[in-house]
């Protein structure tokens, strides 16, 4: 049974921070088309602050995710601070006490984060938000494992679905948040939250894939 070690994977969060920081200008540019253009700045600030706290040592994945979530929640306001904050702390709290994380525990982790986002958010699939990336990605992962795929192959399905979910937001009209005030004018551009969520999930999947053992 493929699994990875919680104790040896905290650096995945550093990779996430690097990916977000590298895409800072891109995320702000997308956001500027239908929002106020600060998504990349705020995300890079929050992920950068978390990375600074994690760089000096070796952390369990659950600890690193908890640090990231707590920083986003307590230092970054707006909508993205709380949404990603509760997602990452939700991930962190659900990781198993035992060190080995198999695909069942990983799925449970994804769902715990999703539940937290939905408990404060109130958006649904099709509203042009990060959920348009997150929900199809989790569903694809579950479907793959349900039909007998290995953990590794299920992560491939997760990545593909996350990117497809992100791309689906181009044709959507925003139903929630600031862009929703634009109505039809919000169509034709990617949602910034869905885009950053795809970056996060892809980096998570890549990191876990490299650490899988049988």
């Amino acid at each position, binding site marked *: 049974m493929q699994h990875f070690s919680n104790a040896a994977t905290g650096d995945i969060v550093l990779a996430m921070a690097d990916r977000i920081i590298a895409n800072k200008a891109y995320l702000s540019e997308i956001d500027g088309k239908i929002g106020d253009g600060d998504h990349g700045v705020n995300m890079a600030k929050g992920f950068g602050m978390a990375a600074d706290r994690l760089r000096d040592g070796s952390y369990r994945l659950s600890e690193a995710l908890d640090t990231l979530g707590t920083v986003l929640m307590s230092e970054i306001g*707006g909508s993205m601070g709380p949404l990603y904050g509760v997602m990452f702390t939700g991930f962190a709290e659900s990781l198993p006490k035992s060190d080995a994380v198999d695909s069942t525990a990983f799925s449970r982790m994804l769902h715990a984060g999703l539940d937290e986002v939905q408990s404060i958010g109130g958006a649904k699939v099709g509203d042009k938000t990060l959920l348009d990336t997150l929900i199809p990605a989790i569903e694809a992962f579950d479907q793959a494992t349900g039909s007998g795929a290995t953990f590794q192959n299920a992560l491939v399905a997760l990545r593909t679905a996350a990117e497809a979910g992100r791309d689906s937001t181009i044709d959507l009209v925003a139903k929630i948040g600031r862009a929703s005030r634009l109505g039809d004018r919000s169509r034709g551009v990617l949602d910034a939250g869905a885009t950053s969520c795809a970056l996060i999930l892809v980096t998570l999947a890549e990191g876990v894939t490299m650490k899988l053992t049988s």
Partner: protein
Amino acid sequence: MQRFINDPDRVVEDTVSGFVKAHADLVRLGNNPRVVIAANAPTLGKVGVVTGGGSGHEPAFIGYVGRAMLDAVAVGELFSSPTARSFHDAIKAADGGKGVVCLYGNYAGDNMNVKMATRLAAKDGIEVATVVANDDVCSAGPEAREKRRGVAGEIFMWKCGSAMAAAGANLEAVRATAQKAIDNCRSIGVGLGPCTLPAVGHPNFTIEAGTIEIGIGHHGEPGIRVEPLKSAAETARDMCAIVLDDHGLSLGSEVAVLISGLGATPLNELYILNDTIAAEIEARGLKIHRTFVGNYFTSLEMVGATLTIMALDDELKTLLDVEVRCPAPF
């Protein structure tokens, strides 16, 4: 546009720092530099009253902290919700042992951060009640009032809720009164020119020269129509019609009127608007109890104005007339 700033990324820090120096008799900072606290807060045995919101709306939100006014305010980035931690710290700073009411505006980020702060406060044993302002008529139709944004009507909500708390009312009574105050408010904004976040560097919406946007939001959210610029009197009549048609007040009702500039409109133009607004309200058979004209709730250097009309009953009238001291000229 030429500005007095040091660093586009430190606009909020520098604003709060200068604000606290200017009003040290009324306000202070605690451990969290993003929470402005009344000098005398918390008052033991009094319901605490807090709010919070994005910066760039000065004197809102911080200017309404004071005596018989708000106990604490959470401060966000420009046009961006404060963090849950800042709302939580504001709630703790205001807690006098009788619970805290959080009176804020209907925006996605504020809704989430207040919800999380309320959960955190519950773990500290602080009971928190909330009222969400939704007075901006043009932000959603009458069938979807719960989706409307909160704008300058929040000032009347803060005033009435704070006065009720200062009079010794319990948490539920303060909440109910603040809810009634905002339920009795209707507002509209009109825009003549956009504003720019210093860190972004260019306006994130446009208003073409020679046009006016009716129903524009506090952050440039689109209004219900853009039309050729017209006279102040015609604009004022339009604003009154939109607000009062939604209000549906009975003849003889008493109202309070608040006309606020959006940042770059001179005060004299607000008085020009009020000249027609006052006549229009009276022509509709309503009685004006009090009028406030000034820069009460701005949007950086946006050109434009908002009109808020609050229907009064005896209780709201009494609360509105309570003497307060706060940095805003209110």
